[in-house]
């Protein structure tokens, strides 16, 4: 991250001057002064609530500090980092998180795009359809998690009940290693497919008509048109949607906490969930801070690489 604040000298109290001065009042804020007055309160808040805590976490990550045991923090330098990077427990969570992120994001991209494509081909009721499809992503993760837990219950859940009436056997959705992770992916997909759909739809409805008309004069096949006209135009949008979803999925916590609490065993424990355990079960604040810093680093580095790729794509 680059140095964000060239303008912190100003006093935040100046926001008050955002009310209009009486006409004819002589004192005029220069543009620069105005920019500082308007930007610095927001940046100060971010400094206090985001940067400062992060720097503090960075400091703690080099110590063996514990939030409950008290006592001074001892510097252990990079020991926390090496311990985390070499821990088999962490590798296991990283793999789980990777499977989850790739699985969930891939599934919702395909589904979301498919739904968007189908909606874009309809002439009537598009607004209504879109609105209905969007409901899941507006719900709180808590509500989503609790309710799917109820629906996926092996004995009393409606999903198994429906499978039963179709003559299919019961599935232990949340208590088998594979199915539990799949359940997480399915629930996340249910909630966030609308997100991809929404963005893909924006791309699809924006494809200029004349391109299709030109293509139909050429008697191009439908698939050819899709591949050469639709997809290239929607692709950049879709990639941004995927970025957002991947970042969100990478830090998944709520759903795990409520749906499986990491089980069976630790097979659905994500990195975020593991950080929580390190931070709040043993109150190993130093280790948890290092763990968290590493996660933030991964997000930032991967995002930067991805954006660079995206920009290159745009230039081509």
């Amino acid at each position, binding site marked *: 991250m680059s140095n964000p604040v060239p303008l912190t000298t100003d006093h935040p109290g100046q926001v008050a001057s955002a009310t209009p001065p009486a006409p004819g009042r002589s004192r005029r804020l220069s543009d620069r002064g105005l920019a500082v007055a308007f930007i610095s309160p927001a940046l100060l808040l971010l400094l206090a609530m985001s940067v400062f805590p992060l720097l503090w976490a960075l400091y703690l990550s080099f110590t063996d500090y514990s939030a409950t045991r008290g006592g001074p923090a001892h510097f252990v330098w990079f020991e926390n980092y090496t311990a985390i990077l070499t821990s088999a427990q962490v590798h296991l969570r990283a793999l789980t998180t990777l499977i989850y992120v790739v699985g969930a994001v891939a599934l919702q991209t395909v589904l979301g795009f498919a739904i968007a494509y189908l909606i874009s081909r309809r002439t009537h009721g598009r607004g209504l359809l879109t609105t209905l499809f969007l409901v899941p992503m507006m719900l709180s993760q808590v509500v989503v998690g609790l309710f799917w837990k109820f629906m996926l219950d092996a004995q009393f859940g409606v999903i198994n009940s429906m499978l039963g009436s179709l003559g299919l056997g019961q599935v232990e959705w949340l208590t088998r290693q594979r199915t539990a992770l799949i359940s997480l992916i399915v629930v996340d997909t249910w909630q966030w497919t609308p997100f991809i759909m929404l963005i893909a739809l924006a791309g699809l409805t924006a494809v200029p008509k004349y391109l299709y008309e030109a293509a*139909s004069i050429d008697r191009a096949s439908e698939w050819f048109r899709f591949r050469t006209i639709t997809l290239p135009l929607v692709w950049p949008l879709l990639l941004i949607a995927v970025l957002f979803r991947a970042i969100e999925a990478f830090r998944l916590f709520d759903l795990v906490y409520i749906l499986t609490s990491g089980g069976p065993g630790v097979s659905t424990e994500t990195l975020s969930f593991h950080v929580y355990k390190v931070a709040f079960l043993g109150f190993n604040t130093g280790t948890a801070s290092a763990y968290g810093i590493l996660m933030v680093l991964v997000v930032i580095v991967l995002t930067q690489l991805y954006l660079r790729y995206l920009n290159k794509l745009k230039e081509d």
Partner: protein
Amino acid sequence: MAVSVDEAVPTGPVRDHTPPARRFGGRGRSVLEIALLTVLAVVMLFPVLWMIETSIKENRDVYAIPAKFFDFTVTLDHFKDVFIASGGRSALSVSFLNSVVVAGVSTVLATVLGVPAAWAYSRFAVKAKKDQLFFILSTRFMPPVVVVIPIFLMYRQVGLIDTKLGLILIYTAFNVPFTIWMMKGFVDEVPAEYEDAAMLDGYTRLQAFWRFTLPLLVPGIAATAVFALIFSWNEFVFAIFLTSSDDVRTAPPAIAGLIGGTTVDWGLVAAASVVFALPVLAFAYLVRKHLIAGVTLGAVRR
């Protein structure tokens, strides 16, 4: 990252790429597509319908095997239980009020801080503007579980643990980046020439912003505020780790607390979820035209 898309989603113009006769079995395919769309819509909406249904079922019917889809006795008891407990107001209804306060105040704060900053970023040459903006955005990408540790340590020094103010501050901090990014887009759409013209007429820059630009931004501000509100309303991680007492706790941890006692009253969970989701759905409907910008922090605009 600004990608412009010409048309609004729900109100997009009817596109009609090829004359139907051209298509392979045009009608058959259309029927197939409608069928597929219907199936997908049913699958996506079923959980929501099931939640509503569960909220009006008696507990016996909730556990019925096989599940009862239609033939159950309708009761509104669960909705009553959401608001009224034996001793008066239920803890759940208190948590709803807390959510209103926390989400409301943090949204107002984020708007007051974010809108002027967005305007300044849009209008003025600020040093290292791109870096600043990326930095602002990146604070939003930190995993909450990670942020909660130093925030917790900080709050305990200043006595903000288990207070509404603590939640309001952290939600504001999470919403300010979003507000800036989203509002910058809206400000960019208002031509700077309006302000220049006003300044030629003798207004100061500030007056020009206040009298001419701001009124044009009101719809955008409303949309942005709604998204900030939805975030604060649904947030769970900070709420569960930074608060613990009944009179501070917001609704998401309170609803999560409904399970894990000795019996699970799924009817109550469903009713509470429905009541909790309604305001968000209503607000989301109001800002449906700005949804895309809203869910992508303004990165993708309509």
